């Protein structure tokens, strides 16, 4: 029977059917729906799977490794920039290797639909020297994650499953297959690989390097990599992941050229060589950075016959689409209509009644006094504060950077330095920055906008819920300078006065504008209010 699933959900069902015992993730577009699906299925079908959001991607990957160490299959899921946060664990678990199968799902966001960069995660898997599965479609996403677990357990290595937005967020029909049983608790036969002191890490790294030939031969034989020879030898095409779809879309009656569909890495050298030897020129079509294009130069004798992103035939920034690929292939398209010039852009906005809006209103009064440069923003819905009509925050770099950048600016002599961060972003990556401020007695005012959820990704549970004051005081903020306000129009003057007073303080001050996200369902709002009311007494 065929099922209607998103690309993300196909990955999730594939993981359930591969026999995972745990999934660990921090929400992030376009990866969020993988974990949401497992959480939902667990609830509906009472599945014996640990499925819960984590504080950040690093804790997710480490917990996944712990479960793998205990012999069971586990998965960590994140968006591309989340992998940066998890990088320490990610790099080192390729050295230790795994025990139970471990797959890291990373969803890249070319064109930055909901992200601050479009980094290509294949470079990071390559850096860690681990295999990658890059599915072409929803069925391959399902089959690919199951295959990834097989490869992981065979090679005793973590495997990356790379998604991109257009597959993660596209629905189609997928066949599910017979599920595997979960693994039993089973410690590794030898624990030395997991003890990465230099004496143990050196032989582990040597063994990782030695495994590469085997990983490549795994790619050569992979059912996900297919070389199909065409009649026309003037061009040979390497197309990876969803780029393969954009290629084939342009040839409804079959592609005249030889095509290597590439969905498993490391790059299969022989397949590339065979394509190269039988074609006059090579074109590489891939979503993201020119990863394959850059890496095949050591497989083929000369680079000059390769065209793609580096030669300007395809766009090097932004995502691909069927039309861009058609252009690169020299396919003439019919003229199509244009967008009338009076059609205006319609950027995303805060929802009606959003508490962030009221906080912006207060900060915008302050901004008139202190100028345009001293409010440091962070990642979340309140990132919209960088845009008109709000124009509240001056910077926006990465999760948690509001506090630490404001600290650096304060260290440079900026006063007042204001940070604006959300509740969940604070526990993701803001707490350590706050500790730095405490230890330095930095003159800083930190707004922790508490809407009691991870709002931008659809209202997941926030790890910060009901913990913020305790964390701040526990880290060493003077309790007299931890202030909770309710961001509402009617409180504007009162809140403004409180903020002005706190801004005079030459130490660490935390203001918590607290109001539940307006998009949360009524029962959750009620629960939040109940918990918070008790808390405030």
């Amino acid at each position, binding site marked *: 029977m065929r099922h209607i699933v998103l690309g993300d959900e196909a990955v999730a069902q594939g993981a359930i059917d591969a026999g995972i015992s745990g999934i660990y993730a921090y929400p992030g577009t376009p990866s969020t729906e993988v974990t949401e699906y497992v959480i939902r299925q667990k609830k509906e079908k009472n599945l014996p799977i640990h499925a819960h959001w984590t504080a950040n991607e690093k804790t997710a990957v480490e917990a996944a490794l712990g479960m793998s160490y205990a012999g069971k299959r586990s998965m960590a899921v994140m968006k591309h920039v989340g992998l940066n946060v998890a990088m320490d664990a990610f790099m080192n678990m390729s050295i230790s290797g795994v025990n139970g199968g471990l797959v890291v799902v990373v969803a890249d966001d070319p064109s930055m639909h909901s992200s601050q960069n479009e980094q290509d995660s294949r470079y990071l898997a390559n850096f860690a020297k681990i295999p990658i599965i890059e599915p072409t479609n929803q069925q391959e996403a399902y089959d690919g994650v199951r295959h990834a677990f097989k490869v992981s357990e065979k090679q005793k290595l973590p495997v990356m499953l790379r998604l991109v937005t257009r597959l993660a*967020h596209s629905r189609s029909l997928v066949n599910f297959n017979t599920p595997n049983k979960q693994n039993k608790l089973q410690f590794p036969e030898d624990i030395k690989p997991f003890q990465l002191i230099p004496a143990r890490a050196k032989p582990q790294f040597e063994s990782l390097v030695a495994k590469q030939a085997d990983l490549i031969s795994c790619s050569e034989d992979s059912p996900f990599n297919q070389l199909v020879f065409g009649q026309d030898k003037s061009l040979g095409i390497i197309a990876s992941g969803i780029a393969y779809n954009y290629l084939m*879309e342009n040839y409804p009656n079959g592609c005249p050229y030889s095509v290597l569909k590439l969905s498993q890495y490391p790059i299969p050298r022989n397949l590339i060589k065979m394509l190269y030897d039988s074609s006059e020129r090579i074109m590489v079509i891939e979503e993201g950075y020119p990863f394959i294009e850059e890496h095949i130069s050591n497989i083929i004798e000369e680079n000059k016959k390769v065209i793609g992103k580096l030669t300007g035939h395809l766009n090097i920034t932004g995502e691909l689409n069927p039309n861009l690929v058609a252009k690169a292939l020299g396919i003439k*398209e019919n003229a199509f209509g244009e967008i009338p010039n009076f*059609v205006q852009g*319609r950027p*995303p906005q805060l*929802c009606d009644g959003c508490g962030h809006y009221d906080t912006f209103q207060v900060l915008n009064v302050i901004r008139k006094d202190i100028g345009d440069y001293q409010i440091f923003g962070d990642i979340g*819905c309140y990132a919209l504060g960088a845009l008109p009509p709000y124009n509240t925050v001056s910077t926006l770099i990465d999760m948690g950077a509001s506090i630490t950048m404001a600290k650096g600016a304060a260290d440079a002599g900026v006063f007042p330095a204001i940070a604006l961060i959300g509740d969940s972003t604070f526990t993701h990556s803001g707490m350590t920055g706050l500790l730095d401020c405490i230890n330095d007695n930095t003159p800083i005012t930190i707004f922790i906008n508490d809407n009691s959820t991870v709002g931008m990704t659809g209202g997941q549970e926030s790890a910060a819920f009901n913990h913020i004051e305790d964390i701040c005081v526990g880290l060493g903020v003077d309790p007299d300078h931890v202030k909770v306000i309710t961001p509402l129009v009617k409180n504007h003057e009162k809140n403004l006065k409180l903020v002005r007073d706190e801004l005079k303080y030459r130490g660490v001050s935390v203001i918590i504008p607290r109001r539940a996200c307006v998009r949360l369902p009524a029962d959750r709002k009620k629960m939040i209010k109940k918990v918070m009311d008790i808390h405030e007494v």
Partner: protein
Amino acid sequence: MITNILLAGVGGQGILTIAAILDTAALNNGLFFKQSEVHGMSQRGGAVQSHVRISDGNIYADLIPKGKADIIISMEPMESLRYLPYLKKDGYIITDTTPYLNIDKYPNEQDIYAALDARENRLYFGATKIAKQTGNAKAANIVLLGAASSHIPIKERALIAAIKTLFNPKGERIVNINLKAFEAGKMYAKEHSLSISE
């Protein structure tokens, strides 16, 4: 053969409900489909679109190539024009005329209607108004789906069954409102032979 339907609107207007109905109906009609959608930040009051591709055979791309859309169904008049590059020369535009005013410089109606009238096949009408008459303004999306239904390669009874399936959790009253909305949209398109505006 592939039929390409581009759904347009503003985040929260209900285009994903239309998409879900098309998906379910396609499955029940033994057809294959791909349907891309927008999640995350842009869902918040921003312009959103969904590409729905339905076929009796394989479909490669999740995105409709430019110039290949058979139909644009739009919840909002200005949004219907944002995707013109995707529409076939003789493709259909079916849009609600109720503007969603959350931006400063909303264009004037005359310009929008003139651009729509320049298309051979268009139907623009007050779908929200009709939805209100059938019981709930929120069912404007289903009115539009009804208006487009004769150009969608899925049997009407499969569309109706999908509406029932999807709204069933919300109770019989909501199911009936949406069935009425579908019928009202279908009748409107029939009476106006799809190229005459209101």
